[in-house]
Structure formats: structure tokens, C-alpha cells
């Protein structure tokens, strides 16, 4: 029997589920877990004989389907050709606002992050934007972001075709409800509790009395992650692919010794 899924593998399978039914997913340059999730979704679609999933990884050679310079990703999104994308965020708040700029009063805040990148545009254009941040702590999941790089919702009458679809963290998976607006805790990852998530989250969110657990990948899916997906990852994220392999081994050793 194979070793149980690691925390990273739980994230990867969660992402693959969120991407089910999409045709073209774009992933940022430094996003190995979203890339792995998309690769898994592609492999699963192939196995189920569903339409092909195309994956564009910014900065990758093999997964770069663009030939019109760095503007093409944005044009492509605006043409409705990208179904899903990932956004991180130094701060994420309860209405889905994302802050990639810094902490404190802009511009001379206490902390400066790189900047908003394409978020202020892509959040409006791509139907399934998955907010992904492993760190789930009160400093990241805040009540109100200090700077809105990209807003979670827009007023009626504002042109908008995209927005938050889910929030995936190291502790759980949230859906986004546009009407409220706000997040709803869907599942807790194995080993995490509702109390822990409430304590780690600076914003209010809705949840069931006893949230379900994030289902681990079934054995076939797990085998795909550890085989094909890890191999495919190697080209764009060699370090992360190595880490994935190592974690599984350590995990397996730990299982054997306990």
C-alpha cells in the first residue's frame, strides 16, 4: 500500500478538483503547487477522456504557448481564452480583496512587497481565480487589506467577467459567495480543526457546524501525482519536484517507524 497523501499532495488534489472542466489554465512563474494541481487536472481529464486541458506556465519553455511578448497573457485572458488562474497575496480579506503591495499607509508603509503584477486586470477577466496561499495566519488573512491590488467584488454596473472562485490555504478550502460577499469554509485539510482555522483567520467566514474533511486523493490519483505529475514538474520547477519526492520518502519513513 502506498504512503498516505502529504500536505502538499492534499493541496495539489484540491487544486485539480477546482480546475475540473476548465480548458486553459495559466500559472505564474513561481507557483509550483498550482502548476502541479493543473498538471494533475490535465492528467485526470485525459484519463477520463474529457476535453484537453491546456496549461500555460509563465516563464516556462515547454509550457509557454505565447509568441507575442509579455502582453499576450493579458490579451488572452481578455479574449476569454483563460478559464482559471491563481493569485496569492500578502494580505487577503473576507471580501476577497487581495493586497500585493504592502503593509501600512501607502506608499511609505512598514513593509513593501513587489507589487500588484497583473492582478488588477486578471481578477476582472478570468472566471475561476483561485486564491492560493499556504500560510494561513492572521497577518495574511486580514479583516481588511491595507491596499487593494485587486478587489474581490465590484459594484453593479462595473464590467467584470471574473473573480474569486475559491481560497485554498494550508489549513482548508473555502468557496466564495459573491452575493454576501464572503468565504464559506468547505473542507478542513487532514489534521486541522475549525477552532484552529477561526483563530488563524482575521475575517469572518461562514461554515457548517462540523466541516467536512478535504478528501485525500484516491490511490490512482496519488500514483499520478507521484509519477507523471512529478516528472512533468521537473522541467519548470526542478527544486520543487525534488522536494515533493523527498517529502513522500520522509513521510513514508515516518509512517514506517511510527
Amino acid at each position, binding site marked *: 500500500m502506498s504512503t498516505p497523501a502529504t500536505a502538499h499532495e492534499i493541496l495539489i488534489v484540491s487544486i485539480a478538483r477546482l480546475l475540473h472542466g476548465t480548458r486553459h489554465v495559466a500559472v505564474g*512563474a513561481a507557483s509550483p503547487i498550482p502548476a502541479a494541481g493543473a498538471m494533475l487536472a490535465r492528467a485526470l481529464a485525459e484519463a477520463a477522456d474529457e476535453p484537453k486541458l491546456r496549461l500555460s506556465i509563465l516563464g516556462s519553455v515547454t509550457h509557454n504557448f505565447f509568441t507575442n511578448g*509579455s*502582453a499576450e497573457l493579458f490579451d488572452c485572458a481578455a479574449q476569454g481564452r483563460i478559464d482559471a488562474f491563481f493569485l496569492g497575496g500578502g494580505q487577503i480579506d473576507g471580501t476577497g480583496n487581495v493586497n500585493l503591495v*504592502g503593509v501600512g499607509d501607502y506608499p511609505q508603509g512598514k513593509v*513593501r512587497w513587489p507589487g*500588484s503584477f497583473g492582478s*488588477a*486586470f486578471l481578477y476582472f477577466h478570468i472566471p475561476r481565480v483561485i486564491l492560493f496561499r499556504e500560510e494561513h495566519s492572521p497577518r495574511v488573512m486580514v479583516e481588511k487589506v491595507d491596499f*487593494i491590488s485587486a478587489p474581490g467584488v465590484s459594484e453593479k454596473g462595473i464590467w467584470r467577467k471574473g473573480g474569486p472562485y475559491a481560497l485554498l490555504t494550508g489549513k482548508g478550502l473555502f468557496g466564495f459567495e459573491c452575493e454576501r460577499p464572503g468565504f464559506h469554509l468547505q473542507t478542513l485539510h487532514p489534521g486541522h480543526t475549525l477552532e484552529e482555522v477561526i483563530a488563524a483567520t482575521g475575517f469572518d467566514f461562514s461554515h457548517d457546524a462540523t466541516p467536512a474533511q478535504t478528501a485525500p486523493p484516491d490511490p490512482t490519483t496519488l500514483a499520478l501525482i507521484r509519477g507523471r505529475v512529478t516528472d512533468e514538474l521537473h522541467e519548470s520547477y526542478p527544486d520543487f519536484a525534488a522536494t515533493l519526492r523527498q517529502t513522500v520518502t520522509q513521510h513514508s519513513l515516518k509512517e514506517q517507524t511510527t
Partner: protein
Amino acid sequence: MQHPLDRLAAQVAPGMKLAVPVDYGGVPMALTRAIIERDIGNLHLVCVPTGGMQVDMLIGAGLVKTVETSAVSLGEAGGAPRFNAAVRAGEVHMLDATCPAIHAGLLAAQKGVPFVPIRGLLGTDLLANRPDWRVIDNPVREETDSDPIVLIPAIHPDAAIFHAPMADRFGNVWIGRRRELAAMAYATQTTLVTVERIFDGDLMDDEMTAAGTLPALYVTDVAQVEKGAWPLGLWGEYEGDTAEQHRYASAARTADGFAAYMADSQQKGAA
């Protein structure tokens, strides 16, 4: 004899609005060091659409007055330390943007129009902090309800600088599929390019090479500088030197560390 790199650097003047490419797009790092040696200051950098080590170094050297960008970061090597410090200290004027807004501004210059509209951006603090960006009610809307849309004014850099794999002796530069380099050149009257090698022939003579060529019409001057993007990489040519990037990232955490790194690297350059 004057080094060709000095000839290029001499065409960058203090106070210029300078368009610079994204880290993986062909950054002229050797030319950047030449600009720093000549102490050409008061620059307004337009990052197309984000900046990295080049921008951080120019800021660390005290040469930058304004940064117009959608991000500055050292990528795998982490945050951009001199940039972050300068922003916190209020030493650089920030024009925070989003990638496609930078592209839109250059596109407007390319097309000779005063602005280009862009979807999105409404409700962001980017828009709130950019009084130069305008919001109008979409004049071609079909429904009578209002439809606010943002207009990005043309960005007219004084010069564009980048590094590419090759140029021919007629001044044509092969940029492959990195077409934002062409966009930078279209938007400005001065384009200074360093290249790995000189192509023996005319890049425009063959449809295959011509397809990836920025014509000499847009190119002011070219200098051959092997490994001209080091320690960054050049697509299709060589990988970035990640050890050196990390060495920079950790040295540049402090102003003194940065100064020591630069002195060391100038010395190496002189040797």
C-alpha cells in the same frame, strides 16, 4: 578606443524616462553597470512590465527618482531589498501599475494616440493613487446604463534599453518572440541594444529570421557584449546565475552590503 558599452551609456542622460525589460526578457545588465559607473541619475524607470535586479541596483546606486512598474522583485532570490528600502524611506516616487496597464501605455505611444482604454482596475488602490489615469463612461456602450472604463495615457519613454541574442551590421536586432521589446522601441525615439553576437548577414533577408526581427528603423545603437545579461539569463541562450543572484540579494539587504557588492563587481569589471 571607447568601449561600445560606453558609447551606449553616453546616450543615456540624467533625468531620462527609461524603459527597461522584465527579468526574463533580456535585461542589459552590463549596460546597467556602465550607467551606474557614469552616475547617470534622476532616472524615471518604466518597467515593462516588472523590474528586478537591474532596477534594484539602479535604486541602490541612488540614480532613480521615479519607478513606474507593476512589481519589482528578485524572483527566486526574494524581494528586491534596495527597492523595498527606498520605498519605505520615501526615496523613490512610486507609480504603481498593473502589467497590462504598462503595456497599454506603451501601445498608446506606438499607435500615436493619447490613451488606450483598459478593463479592470476599478475599485483598486492602484487607480486611487494614479491621478494620471482617467475614468470615463464608455462612449460606445450599447446599453444606456453607465459603463465606467479606465483610460491609460500614453507612456513616452525617452529611451529603451535591452539585451538580445543578436543583431546584424545594419542595426536590425533579433528579438524572437519577446515582442514587448519591440513595443518598447516603437514607443521611444532612442533604443539602445546590447547583443550577444553579430549576425553575419542581413536579418531582414530571410522571412524566417525577419519574423523575429526589430528593424533598424527603430534601433539607435547596438553594442556587442557577451553575457550582457549576466547574472540574469537570456532566453534561448543561457540560464541565470542563481548563485550570483542570491549573493546580490543577501549583500543588498543593507546599504553598506550593496555598496561593497557593487565596488567588488566594478573591480571585477575593470580587471
